[in-house]
Every structure is written in C-alpha cells, then in structure tokens.
C-alpha cells in the first residue's frame, strides 16, 4: 500500500473482532482526522468505514479491506433549536449525541441499545430503536447525508436524490461510500417515562400486548428461554409521564458499554447459569407494576449488560433476530416452542419487539413481531442445529432476518428469506462497481 506521502496519514495493523466474537481478522486500519486524509489511501484500495466497532457482526472490517476509523469525525456541525435539525459528523457516538441533546430538550427517538454506535453506523445499518412500530428505523430521521467516494470526493445527498445513492446508503452496510456527515430530524423527548410491566404467559400473548401498546415510547418484551417456561415473560411499556419523578441516574460517558468487552475466561451461560438467570429475572420482572425511569436510562439498556456479555466467555455469542409477519406469528411461536422443547438449546435471552414499517433493501424492517435470541457460541452439534431449525421455521412463516445482528446468515439463507435479494444486491453493486467497499459481513452474505 502506498500513500504515505500524504501528510498526517496514519495507518496501522490491528486485530479486530466483532462484538459477538464470531469473527476476527488482522487488518489495516486508517485513522483519518482531517478531511484531506479521506483521500490519502490509493484510490483502488479496498476499504470499509468503521465507527466504534460495536457492531455484533464484522460490519466494519474485512481481511481484504482497510478499515477507515471515523471516530475523529465526531463533531456537531449545526443545531437549529427552532426546527430541531442537527447536522453531525458520522463518527459521533449516539450516546454522546443524546447526552448533549437531552438537556436542550431534544433527542434522537431512534437509537440502538449500544451507546457507542456511531451516526454513520446507524445509517449504514438502518438501525431501529426502542419501539420501531412507533418511530420507524433510522432512515426516517435522515434529511441529508454526505458521502465520500474515492476519486470522486464528497457528495451531498438528500431523499430527493434520483440516482438511488441516498436510498442505497441507508441500510447499505457501507457499500456505497464512506458516510461523513448527516442532518437528522430530532424530536422532543418525554421528561420521564412511566415503565409499566405487563405479564404474558407465552409469545402469542406477548404479540397481542405489543400490538395494543404499539404507540408507546419504549416497548419490548423479555421472555423466559427455559423449555418448561418458554415464552412467558413481561412486556415493558414505556409511556410519557411528565409528572413522574425518575430516580437520579448517572448518564456520564464512563457508564457507557465499551465497544469491546473483556470476556470472562469461561462462559457462564451453560444450562445451570441460564436457568438461574431466567429464574432471577422472572422473580424480578414478573410482577405487575410501574416505575418511573429517566429517558437517558431507557435509551441505552445495554449499559447495564456489561457482565452479561462478558459472561459469554471467549467463544462469544450469536444473536438470531427475525421479524415474523403478524398473521404468521402465532403459528411460528407455537412451532418454535415445540422446537425448543425438542432440541433444548441454550438460549441466554429472548426479547421481542413490534415493527410497522416497510422493508427497504436489506434493512431489518417490515410489519410483524421480531424475536431476538442470544445464544452462547456453540460447541455442540444440537446448538448448531438449532440455528438452522430456527431459521427454517422463520422462513417457513415468512420471516425476515437481521443481517447486522446475525453472524450465522449466509447468501443462500438471505436469498430464501428476502425475496428481492438479487435485485438489492444488484442495486448495491451499481453504487460499488469496482468492489471498492467491502467487509467480512458483506463477503459472507454475498454482496
């Protein structure tokens, strides 16, 4: 690789690992901290933008690509307090942005659970937040974006862009260029939330509660994963309550979940550990009630999950997340319950959400109920087999997978699950004709 003549070019070799620890590779990493350094690599050098590296899957690195670490591009460029438009660089962490905005009476209503996810990453993955049925996905906040393409420089794009580049960039997994900045539409946050717990006996009942509460600010379910209690749980319904007095909450950056969590030497999520954790959470949450919660706490629930993720050990974890259409969900849930009783997989966590949007490209959206399952990385064949059984069940019930979470997906699976997969791939290739952009994730799923 040449390019060292550009003053300030910083390049390193580093071993990078995905958050779920299923992929790691030694790759080149560039750390541009000035705009001219975006052009410092040779124009034909394969690359992929990288934010904090908090993606579950290897979305920001690949063996053949230089990762462009965008964390220096983290500046707030303009804030219109009247209209609620924020222009911000792509490397800004969503947690920092929310921390800045909340005291001013604004916030981004759609934020992933990890506070270190960057704005660029949220766009490239078209992430969802605490209630996608109410808020949609991140693209719904996006007014404009700026993209850097080697050899062509910086492009400003908005939703009226007729080339398709704007649309391809939202949820485009970084294949259309390096996102450098974005203008986002903010919302007024509730001062506090009243978080109500609604008990459910199974997943079918959970779906009904989710549909009834679809307009809540925060809406997600936790479900017991033990075969004998499979699916019973609690739906957290967060409603705006300006009268509520939330307990004092430390929202300082030092509480943020790190992008990389040092794993414990061994996984705690064996059958005994999972049974204990489910019993404890059932005891804690399976009680009807209401508690006041600060918005800052509700936005980033993963901040309390450091030990939970460390407990997957060095082998890491896998997240399976599929969205099942409403009319198929009850049958899917029943079949899944049977499957779990039969195969008895080790599932550390099950959560549910409701979606009510339109699926664009490969983004995780549509109309239905999503289930996310966290499983310790498998060492036994039955655990492997469960991945396939789960995916087959989901496909049989019209499900749609989340490529940005699930490291078990491959091209064949996506082609079966997403009808227009080949058209989506062709559209992404149209904006990446020289295959200049690519990651381990995009290689695995055949983009």
């Amino acid at each position, binding site marked *: 690789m040449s390019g*060292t003549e550009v003053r300030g070019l910083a390049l390193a070799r580093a071993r990078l690992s995905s958050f779920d620890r299923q992929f790691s590779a030694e790759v080149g990493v560039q750390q541009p901290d000035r705009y001219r350094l975006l052009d410092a690599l040779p124009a034909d050098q394969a690359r992929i933008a990288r934010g904090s590296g908090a993606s579950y899957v290897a979305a920001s690195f690949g063996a053949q690509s230089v990762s462009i670490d965008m964390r220096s591009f983290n*500046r707030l460029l303009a*804030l219109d307090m009247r209209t609620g438009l924020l222009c911000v660089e792509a490397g800004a962490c969503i947690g920092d942005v929310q921390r800045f905005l909340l005291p001013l009476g604004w916030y981004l209503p759609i934020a992933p659970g990890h506070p270190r996810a960057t704005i660029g990453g949220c766009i490239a993955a078209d992430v969802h937040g605490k209630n996608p049925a109410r808020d949609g996905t991140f693209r719904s906040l996006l007014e404009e974006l700026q993209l850097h393409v080697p050899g062509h420089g910086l492009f400003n794009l908005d939703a009226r862009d007729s080339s398709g580049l704007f649309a391809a960039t939202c949820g485009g997994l970084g294949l259309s260029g390096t996102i450098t900045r974005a203008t986002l539409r903010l919302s007024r946050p509730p001062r506090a939330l009243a978080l109500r717990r609604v008990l459910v006996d199974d997943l079918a009942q959970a779906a009904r509660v989710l549909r009834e509460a679809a307009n809540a600010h925060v809406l997600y379910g936790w479900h017991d994963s033990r075969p004998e209690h499979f699916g019973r749980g609690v739906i957290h319904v967060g409603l705006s309550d300006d009268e509520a007095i939330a307990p004092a909450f430390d929202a300082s950056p030092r509480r943020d979940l790190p992008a990389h969590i040092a794993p414990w030497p061994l996984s705690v999520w064996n059958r005994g550990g999972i049974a204990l954790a489910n019993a404890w959470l059932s005891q804690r949450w399976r009680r009807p009630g209401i508690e006041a919660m600060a918005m800052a706490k509700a936005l980033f629930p993963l901040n309390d999950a450091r030990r939970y993720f460390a407990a997957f050990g060095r082998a890491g974890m896998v997240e399976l997340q599929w969205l099942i259409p409403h009319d198929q969900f009850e049958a899917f849930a029943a079949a899944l319950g049977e499957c779990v009783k039969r195969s008895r997989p080790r599932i550390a966590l099950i959560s549910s959400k409701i979606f009510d949007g339109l699926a664009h490209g490969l983004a995780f959206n549509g109309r239905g109920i999503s289930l996310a399952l966290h499983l310790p990385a498998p060492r036994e064949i039955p655990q492997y087999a469960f991945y396939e059984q789960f995916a087959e069940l989901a496909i049989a019930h019209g499900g749609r997978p989340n490529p940005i979470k699930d490291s078990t997906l491959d091209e064949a699976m996506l082609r079966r699950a997403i009808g227009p997969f080949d058209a989506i791939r062709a559209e992404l290739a149209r904006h990446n004709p020289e295959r200049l952009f690519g990651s381990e994730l995009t290689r695995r799923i055949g983009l």
Partner: protein
Amino acid sequence: MTVVVVGASSGLGRTLAGELARRGHGLLLVASDLRDLHAVAADLQVRHDITVSTLALDLAGEPDPGARIRAALVGLPALSALLLPVGVSRGDDDFSLSAARIGELLAINLHAPLAIVHALLPDLRDSRGSVVLFGSIASARGRGRNVVYASAKRALDCLYESLRQTHAPDALHVQLYRLGFLATNLTYGMKLPLAASQPADIARVVVARLGKGSFAHHLPRQYGLIAWLMRRLPWSLYRRWRG
C-alpha cells in the same frame, strides 16, 4: 480576550481548542484546511456557545504565517495567549530526506513557531499574555531517527530561553511543554516503548496553567526523568542504543 491555537484541527491542537472553549475563551483557530477548521469551529460554537474565528494557513508553504495571523486578529478581542501545538514528523526522517522535505519539516516545526511568535509578541506583551510552545521527548538527545524533527524541537528550547531572557516574568508568560508520546496521528500504529498519553489529559493541564508564570516542563512528568537518564547515558552506551 482571544486565544490563538495554531494546528487546531487535529491531535493536541484540536483538544486544546476544545478545553479552551469549555472554559469560555474566545478563539482564533489556525490550521491548513478550511473544511476541518469549519468543522472544529462549528462544534465548539454548538457545544459551548463561544466566539470562534478561523484562518486556513498551510504552514509548510506560508512565507509569513505570523503576518497572516496578525491580520486575522484585527477586530477580535485582545490577544491573551498563543498556543503552538504544531508539529509533523516522518517515518523516513533518518538522513534520507530530500532538501525539500527537510524544508517542509523545518517550516512546520520551527519556522512557523518562530515567525508567529515574532509577529504576535507586541500584542502579547500589551496584554501580559502567554506564549505556549510544545517540544518533544524526541529532542532529549539526537538519534538516527527523527533527525530534522528533533533538531527543530530542540531549537524551541532556545526560543523559550530567548523569550524568557528578554522579558520580565510579569510582562510575558513563556511556557514550554516537552511532550512524551501522545495518542495522535503522529504515533498511530507505532510500537511505542511507553503508553501514549491522551491529548485530553495534556490539554487540561496546559489550559489550567495558562497565565500562571513561565516554566519548561515535561508532560507527562515521568518523561522528565526519562530525558534526564537519556542525557546522562554514557556516549559509548548511547551510540549503541537503537531503541
């Protein structure tokens, strides 16, 4: 009052600008690329609601950077401090550089600080302000690497002494920080013998001491001991050292 930060778009300069803005100082930020300057200035204005002016200046090719900065200060509140966290090093600065490359390194690391200090000295004297220079541990003793860079940084020690020798302690505060390894683009990807310090930690110290006398310090402080040991290493041993 206005503080001038030269090299404000990246590394320590950007962090210093942020720390100064946090404490409410008005700023004139100088760096080579207007795009970066606009981004830094906008961020500081949005976050801290302060007055920030910018000047795009390529120190490698500007014959009189001091005059350009002085012109940019016209109309701004009086100058209270000049911070010069400028510096660039090269991996091939090992007696293999061309004359043009040597000139570029000297222009940024030495000519620019000298010329800017010369031009702004009258204003700084008027306000009994501060000049803050940034040296490097690399200049503790000459080696076969960073030849030009270390020479230029060593020369800043001379500039520091000249300023102090010329000005009474209450007329001008002259501060020289000889920096250890910093986690910036200058050291990114390098295997360093000691952990690099965070620019934010350095910036907090530097800004807190603005206007508080004249001195030359190593930062972090342990580099003072390292420099002392390096200088006292017998030549017969030192010349064999390739670390």
